[in-house]
């Protein structure tokens, strides 16, 4: 899967959780929870949706690795 394809899927997930957000303005290193006003419940929903999209189960110990857009793309690209 290319980086752009991964990014597109991540955007689909984030859009579902924060439909009002302009994801194109999201900085690659911005903390997603702060930038999108995502609480712990929403973040768990993001993790569940990413699991469904990519078939990858993110352990809690990896939550920090997927806390930014750049981190998410790297995580699922590899």
């Amino acid at each position, binding site marked *: 899967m290319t980086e752009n394809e991964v990014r597109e899927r991540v955007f689909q997930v984030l859009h579902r959780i924060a439909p*009002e957000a302009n994801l194109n303005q999201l900085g690659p290193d911005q903390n997603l929870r702060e930038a999108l006003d995502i*609480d*712990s*419940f929403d973040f*768990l929903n993001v993790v569940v949706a990413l699991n469904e999209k990519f078939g990858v*189960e993110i352990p*809690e110990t990896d939550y920090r690795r997927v806390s930014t857009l750049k981190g998410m793309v790297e995580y699922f690209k590899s």
Partner: protein
Amino acid sequence: MPSLGADMEAGKLIEWKIKPGDHVKRGDIVAEVETEKADIDVEIFSTGVVHELLVQPGQKVPVGTVLATIVGEGEQPSAAPAPPPVPERVRISPLAKKLAQELGVNIEGLPGTGPGGAITREDVEGAVQGKPASKPPAAAPAEAQAGMRRAIAAAMARSNREIPHYYLKMQIDIHRTLEWLQAENLKRTVKNRLLPAVALIRAVTCALKEVPDLNGYWVNDHLEIKESINVGFAISLRHGGLVTPAILDAGQKKVDQLMAALTDLIVRAREGHLRSSEISEGTITITNLGDLGVETVYGVIYPPQVALVGFGKIQERPWAANGMLGVRPVVTATLAGDHRATDGHRGAQFLSALDRFLQEPEKL
């Protein structure tokens, strides 16, 4: 029209989910009502057959107005009072108003389908042609948000006016609870993971069983302790504002059931599908602002409740225990108590019990 909170004076019927002749039972959703805070699914608290619908979609009526009559099997219906109108300015466009005058249409109670429920030319023409009223549109987002702020303002002003608050706070070492959650979540699929908030809610309900004075209402100058623990949980909405629907019978629920109930509640709160009992039957409120980095929460009690428990951010801190200094995840728990109902001693007993339960998470 049920009272869906201390702040509610009137509600607008959006839609009936029933019709005359339908059999209904306790707990069925029979109508959708718009309040200042949110659209609510109204449940019925009796069983029988719908006899008559007394209020039409689009009508705004005061709390306490009879919306419909229900009769038991084989019973004769009794006359119900006609719904009193809520005195308010009728929203109508100038063109529609002129047309209504020309056509002799009574605009009082006529459902409007324009912005903010305003009556439009089409509504007046529809009334002349005898078309059934369609479901009025939901309030525009800005208007809905302003209504929500008004509702919150009314409830919080009443709370500050009437309730002599006292505050207690306790820092709680939460490492055992987090380790237990981590171990639990390792055994679970992503979908079944537990959030720390659920362990906190469970610990609150366990502590309330030891200190029940904090679970109830202050009504007619005395404390009514409630048997059921219905935990109102403050949920922020994405377009702004806050609702505090209750997890009903939370005291009977273990962590898995609480997680499922909380998930369901948050989803429905954000979709605007809360049930009336969830809005009106909370017996205590929990506010968790830790996600936003807040250290300590000094909450305002939601009347007629007598307590609010706040949780701040879980932070790593230097922590001395058994003569050793270490680093522990610590949460600040606060209790806002109604001094008419309890005193600081009772409040301290509650926080102490809360701390104890969080040190024994396997018992949660």
